C-alpha cells in the first residue's frame, strides 16, 4: 500500500497513481488531480460528470463506463470527450478517485 500527499492530504494510491480509498476523496483533491493531468479549470460540466461517477460508484461498487455516464448520467458522449480529451473514462475515474472502469463497453 502506498501513501502520497495530494493537496496537503495523505491518501492511499495504487502504482499508477489512482486513489484507492473512496472515502479519502474530496472535491479539493479532485481539483488537484485534474490539474495533475492538464485540466486546469474544473467547470460545472466537469463536476457534473465527476459527481455522477462518485454517486454511481457508491451504488454499484463499480466505476461507470462512458456508455453508462451517457445513458444513466445523461451527459452526451461527445461532451465527455470535449471535457476530458482522448481518454475520458480513465481521466474521469482518476479525478473522481475511483478505479479504472473494468467493462469493455
Amino acid at each position, binding site marked *: *500500500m*502506498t*501513501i*502520497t*500527499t*495530494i493537496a496537503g492530504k*495523505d491518501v*492511499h*494510491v495504487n*502504482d*499508477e*497513481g*489512482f486513489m484507492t480509498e473512496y472515502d479519502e476523496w474530496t472535491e479539493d483533491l479532485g481539483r488537484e488531480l485534474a490539474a*495533475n*493531468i*492538464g485540466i486546469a479549470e474544473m467547470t460545472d460540466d466537469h463536476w457534473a460528470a465527476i459527481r455522477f461517477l462518485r454517486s454511481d460508484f457508491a451504488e454499484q461498487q463499480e466505476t461507470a463506463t*462512458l*456508455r*453508462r455516464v*451517457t445513458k444513466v448520467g445523461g451527459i*452526451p*458522449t*461527445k461532451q465527455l*470527450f470535449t471535457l476530458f*480529451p*482522448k*481518454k*475520458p*473514462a*480513465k*481521466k474521469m475515474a*482518476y479525478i473522481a478517485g475511483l478505479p479504472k472502469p473494468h*467493462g*469493455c*463497453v
Partner: protein
Amino acid sequence: MTTTETTPTVVPDFGDDDNDRKICFICSKGTLDMAYPALIMANGALGEGVETHIFFTFWGMDMINKATVDDLQFTPLGNTAMHMPPGWGKLSEKHMPQGFGGLPGMTGMATKMLKKQIAGLDVPEVPEFLELLVNMGAHLWACRMSVDMMDLEKDDLIDGVEDVINVSEFIDLSDGAQVIFV
C-alpha cells in the same frame, strides 16, 4: 499492522502527447455475431484516444443499411463451434449437431438467444452501438463497389456514414494505420 510508505505523487500517463496511432476496421460480414467484434474493439480504441475508422464492405453493408441494420441474424448452421444452449449441464459442453441448425425457426431462436446474452452484458444493439461510436469520434465509410452492386444510395445508409469511398481512397486514409479485417 500494515506497513505503509509515503511516496512522491505518481501521475498516470494518459498518453496525451501520442497522436500517431490510427486503427481501421474492415467489416465484411453481415451476421449478428460477426458485427460485434469490430464494434467492441473500435469502442475500446476510441476510449483510448485512438483515431478510428470503420470501412463496411460486401455483407458488412447490412450493418449500415437502414433496411437491414435492425434485423441482423445469427445462425448455428455451418458453425461447428456452436454449443448446445447454456443451462443444460454436461450437455451444454457438447457441440450442437449440424443437422439441428437447418430446422425451421432455428436461426430466429439462435438470434433471439444471442441478443439476450449481449443485452445481459449491457452491450447495446448494433444501431445504437454505431451511433455511440460516431459520438465517440469514429469515422464510418461505405464501400463504393458494394453500394453500386447492391444498388444503394447514400440515403439508404444510416446517418453516421460519412461517405461512400472507393478502395484507393480507403488505402489512402489507412496510411500508417493498423488494419483489422473482420
